[in-house]
């Protein structure tokens, strides 16, 4: 996957040499800091300032990364984690957007939910973790439910704000043009609130991702990157831990860059709600 991308850039570059130069300089500029940090890391690791087991060289980390990937262990962990993330996040998105939109549309729903949500939100999600573990047992159900529960708060808040922030004049002009409730909701309220809802989903996903790694460590799920890192600690496998952290970083970056920026681009920006 990574290779394919690089090849495309390489073959694509010579066509426009001026632009290619610029691009190469960009790439070099972005890589340079990593080279510096990597070199410092290597020097420290080779110098033996810290015990070798605790501070492996980058080659060892890369090696265990490759070995674990080939053996299928790393992909298995990663897939389980991503499935858990998506399940929890879907739960949060469905309930969060529904509750948030209801709160924005109906005064009664707002009065009912707002106190509950305001009390639940300031408590850090992980503080609920032991409670969930007791109620739902160790394993998947607790992890997914906790992720969903924690991710729901930013989604609720942002959907609520978004619906309230829809311009009064749009609502009134749609009404005067004879839109019924359904059309009003589909064609005015929903698109109008969408930038906020998307922000909420984005924050919710980020929240879910942070919590998931920790809950995997606590809930003793059979597979999962958080669990892999935590388990590797027992055996002082620092290289495995660092490989796991790298995968977590890659997944986090991919979620942000590929999923949300794309969605935003295709919906909100295209409708002209915000400039790209």
């Amino acid at each position, binding site marked *: 996957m990574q290779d394919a991308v690089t090849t495309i850039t390489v073959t694509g570059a010579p066509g426009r040499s001026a632009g290619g130069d610029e691009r190469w300089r960009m790439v070099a*500029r*972005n*890589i*340079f*800091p*990593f080279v*510096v*940090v990597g070199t410092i890391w290597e020097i420290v690791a080779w110098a033996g300032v*810290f015990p070798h087991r*605790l*501070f492996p060289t980058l080659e060892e980390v890369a090696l265990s990364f490759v070995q674990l990937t080939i053996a299928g262990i790393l992909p298995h962990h990663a897939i389980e984690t991503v499935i858990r993330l998506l399940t929890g996040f879907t739960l949060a998105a469905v309930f969060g957007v529904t509750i948030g939109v209801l709160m924005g549309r109906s005064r009664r729903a707002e*009065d*009912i*939910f*707002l*106190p*509950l949500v305001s*009390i639940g939100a*300031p*408590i*850090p*999600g*992980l*503080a*609920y*973790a*032991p*409670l969930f*573990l*007791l*109620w739902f047992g160790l394993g998947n159900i607790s992890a997914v439910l906790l992720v969903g529960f924690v991710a729901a708060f930013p989604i609720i808040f942002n959907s609520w704000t978004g619906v309230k922030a829809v311009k009064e004049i749009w609502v009134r002009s749609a009404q005067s043009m004879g839109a019924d409730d359904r059309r009003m909701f589909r064609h005015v309220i929903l698109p109008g609130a969408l930038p906020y809802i998307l922000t909420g989903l984005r924050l919710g996903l980020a929240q879910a*991702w*942070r*919590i998931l*790694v*920790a809950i995997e*460590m*606590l809930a003793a799920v059979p597979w999962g*990157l*958080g669990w892999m*890192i*935590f388990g*590797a*600690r027992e055996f*002082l496998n*620092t290289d495995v*831990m*660092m490989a*796991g*952290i790298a995968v*977590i*970083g890659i*997944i*986090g*970056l991919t*979620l*942000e860059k590929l999923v949300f920026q794309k969605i935003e681009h295709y919906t909100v920006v295209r409708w002209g709600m915000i400039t790209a």
Partner: protein
Amino acid sequence: MTDQGQRARSLIRAAITLTAAAAVYEALARSGYFAPALLPTIPLIARALYASLADGSMLEHAAFTLYRVMFGFGLSMVVGIPLGILMARFRPVENFFLPLVSALMPIPSFALVPLFMLWFGIGNTTTVLIVFYAATFPMLFNTWSGVRSVNPLWLRAAGAMGADEQSLFWKVIIPGASPFIITGMRQAFLRAWIAVVGAEMIAASDWGLGWVIFDAKEFLNTDIMLAALVVIGAIGYLFERLVFGSLERATVQRWGMTRAAKG
């Protein structure tokens, strides 16, 4: 309906909602359908909260947690604000640090807990460093975008009136960027607060609110867990409303800058 009447009605409804929720919970807890050890009644939770506050143990745990949060949060300000300003003012600094920061940011702080446990052992150092890691990024990013978004007109106006570098920095750039910096502090504290609870659970030391909750799980002391949850929520709420709210009023709003950046 007047504004005040509106607010009174909301308050009454909020009270009704909370009472109803409490009643439902109490009914569930007393129904005997769930094990009482897992679902303690509200009076039991209140008693646990009162007892742990009265003998000072909960306060001591809270003091440990607060110490870790403040230490890590303070470190993140010491590093994040100057670095953010440097990144915004000097191109080479930005070119060097921005790729690094973007690569580290998507790694959740909890992923580093096991690694830090190996490196720094169990206890304060690990927790403080995790808090520091979690809080630095919002601090850094908000400072960076705050300094970059200072109105260039103000800079030129100050320059035309003969401001030197130093007064330009203290009188124009810092106040101009302050709404963003305060937003950054707010977000950073929120992150720090989340991180400290998690780090205390995973890197279990002997003290701290996160540890209380996790330890109570071992003995099925659900009432103590819920009492600690109340304390955690209360402290978080207090900081968010009182500390950062009044900080904002004392600086940004007094200087007449609207809250340009509310994360």
